[in-house]
């Protein structure tokens, strides 16, 4: 029961951040604010917990709780000045919203049931993400042990947003229980489904948009990965959040959504190395698009500078981690600098063949084929204003991933792609569904 408190603080904190950032005139409906706020809140509570590492070189639970309560109070006062509407004010939820929430919870049941079968999560949960969380929570000043070269099998070069989200909860209970990590994976899945449905409903007020999250949750392989306590879904939800912000910016012409987009990319960059690559690609593509489409280049540049400064706190953990703490990757051998380059072409071929096989694999229930069909059927609408950036980002990301598979010769290629490519694709599912549905609107 003690864990309900950090959960409520987290949701409220995220909700208030969005209320402060987005003016009432363009603010999304309450249901979206709650689900989106839940995601933002996960990151802000984790980020404030992260400051404990900078100030005390260890996680101090009392400090983490105190600073989050102080932030909540400050945000509440700021939100009051910015036309705060409380979550359960009469008229802020319509009938479709309530039906949607109930259906999403119903479809979450298989995720919970699968998660309960593996309370410690999948391989990367105990060997990487939850291991980092234990080091952070139990390690005191020795938390940097998680970066030790002896732990090279545990992806020491990965950042740690997901572990910090769990540590925030553990600060309340005082022990690193696995119930928290299990519940976090279910919560992230629900938040993904909620943002997908209510985000699409914000753009097109139809109950049929409920099919979007149900499509993802009906694929058993997605259920398995979502409940595995990995960081991949977190990458996917932040990408969805960034794309939704961008789409709302295009539709409502409010720079508040750009701020949310930048916050999303900042938080995404702290999820894992793939998240950092995806965030940098998204930042480059979306940033260039906005700058090039602005009426006055100077004004747009000035606006970007101030927005980047506003969103700097979200990028700060990544910057600190990459500059000060991140160890060299022990699982990287640059095939380009090797004397013999003969392995590179077969690696590239294997990666491409595996990608093709993966996209038609029965475990996805024909998801990729149907999604491609929908995008093709929508025709030019799939590439209209505000949407063409999605395929550009996705293709650039896939090219980067294939590039890494080819160049990094540390792992045997067959083992590597067969173990990781499915998770790369899994993280893109929310963005692909968002693209297909917005194209078909």
């Amino acid at each position, binding site marked *: 029961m003690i864990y309900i408190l950090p959960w409520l603080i987290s949701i409220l904190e995220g909700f208030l951040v969005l209320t402060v950032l987005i003016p009432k005139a363009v603010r999304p409906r309450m249901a979206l604010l709650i689900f989106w706020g839940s995601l933002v809140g996960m990151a802000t509570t984790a980020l404030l917990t992260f400051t404990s590492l900078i100030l005390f070189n260890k996680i101090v639970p009392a400090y983490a709780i105190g600073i989050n309560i102080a932030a909540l109070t400050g945000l509440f006062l700021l939100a009051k000045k910015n036309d705060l509407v409380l979550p359960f004010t009469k008229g802020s939820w319509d009938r479709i919203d309530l039906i949607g929430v109930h259906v999403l919870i119903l479809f979450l049941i*298989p995720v919970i049931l*699968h998660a309960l079968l593996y309370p410690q999560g999948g391989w990367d949960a*105990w060997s990487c993400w939850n291991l980092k969380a234990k080091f952070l929570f139990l390690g005191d000043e020795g938390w940097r*042990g998680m970066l*030790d070269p002896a732990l090279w099998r545990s992806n020491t070069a990965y950042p740690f947003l997901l572990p910090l989200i769990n540590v925030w909860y553990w600060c309340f209970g005082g022990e690193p229980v696995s119930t928290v990590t299990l519940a976090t994976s279910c919560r992230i899945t629900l938040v993904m489904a909620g943002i997908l449905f209510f985000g699409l409903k914000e753009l097109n007020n139809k109950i049929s948009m409920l099919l979007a999250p*149900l499509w993802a949750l009906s694929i*058993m392989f997605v259920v398995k990965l979502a409940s595995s306590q990995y960081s991949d879904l977190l990458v996917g939800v932040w990408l969805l959040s960034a794309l939704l912000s961008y789409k709302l910016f295009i539709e409502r012409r409010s720079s508040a959504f750009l701020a949310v987009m930048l916050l999303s990319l900042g938080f995404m960059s702290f999820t894992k190395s793939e998240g950092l690559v995806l965030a940098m690609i998204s930042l480059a593509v979306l940033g260039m698009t906005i700058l090039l489409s602005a009426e006055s280049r100077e004004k747009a540049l000035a606006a970007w500078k101030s927005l980047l400064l506003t969103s700097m706190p979200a990028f700060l953990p990544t910057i600190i981690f990459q500059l000060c703490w991140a160890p060299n990757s022990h699982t990287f051998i640059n095939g380009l600098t090797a004397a013999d380059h003969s392995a590179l072409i077969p690696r590239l071929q294997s990666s491409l063949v595996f990608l093709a096989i993966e996209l038609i694999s029965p475990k996805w229930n024909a998801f990729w084929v149907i999604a491609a069909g929908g995008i093709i059927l929508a025709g030019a609408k799939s590439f209209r204003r505000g949407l063409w950036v999605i395929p550009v980002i996705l293709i650039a990301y896939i090219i980067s991933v294939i590039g890494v598979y080819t160049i990094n010769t540390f792992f045997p290629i067959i083992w590597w792609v067969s173990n990781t490519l499915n998770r790369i694709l899994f993280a893109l599912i929310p963005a692909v569904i968002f693209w297909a549905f917005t194209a078909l609107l």
Partner: protein
Amino acid sequence: MKFENWLSRRNFMLAIIAAAVLYGTGCGLIELCSMYAQRQTHPFFFEGDLFAGVKGATGGEKYLGYMTDRDINIDKIAMRFTQAQFALAPVILDFNNSNHRLLILDFQDLKQAVALAQKLQLKLLKRSPQGLLFAERPGS
């Protein structure tokens, strides 16, 4: 609603997606039921739990040497090692490095573990029912 409107590209795609949702949900539930049925005969077991007994005896040590005769390139063995690491965190398990004060001897053949302990002149601190040995290097 006119028939041609109803039969739009959008509705056609939504119908296909709805069918995919129904099919996927049905198959998923059947698979979940069979997983739960299997769990009745094969209960969940986390190998890291085997190492829980060592946890209280590490006494603030940063590293433990993890000595084994098993091949870590085999997935099952790598899993055992990473789960042991998870169970003992924030202590770091150093794979097959006997230079640390405290060592875990996780051998398939107990005789080999005892032989190594004698060779390194280790003092045995604990022995688990599953054959894990926890030892200390005297004087280090």
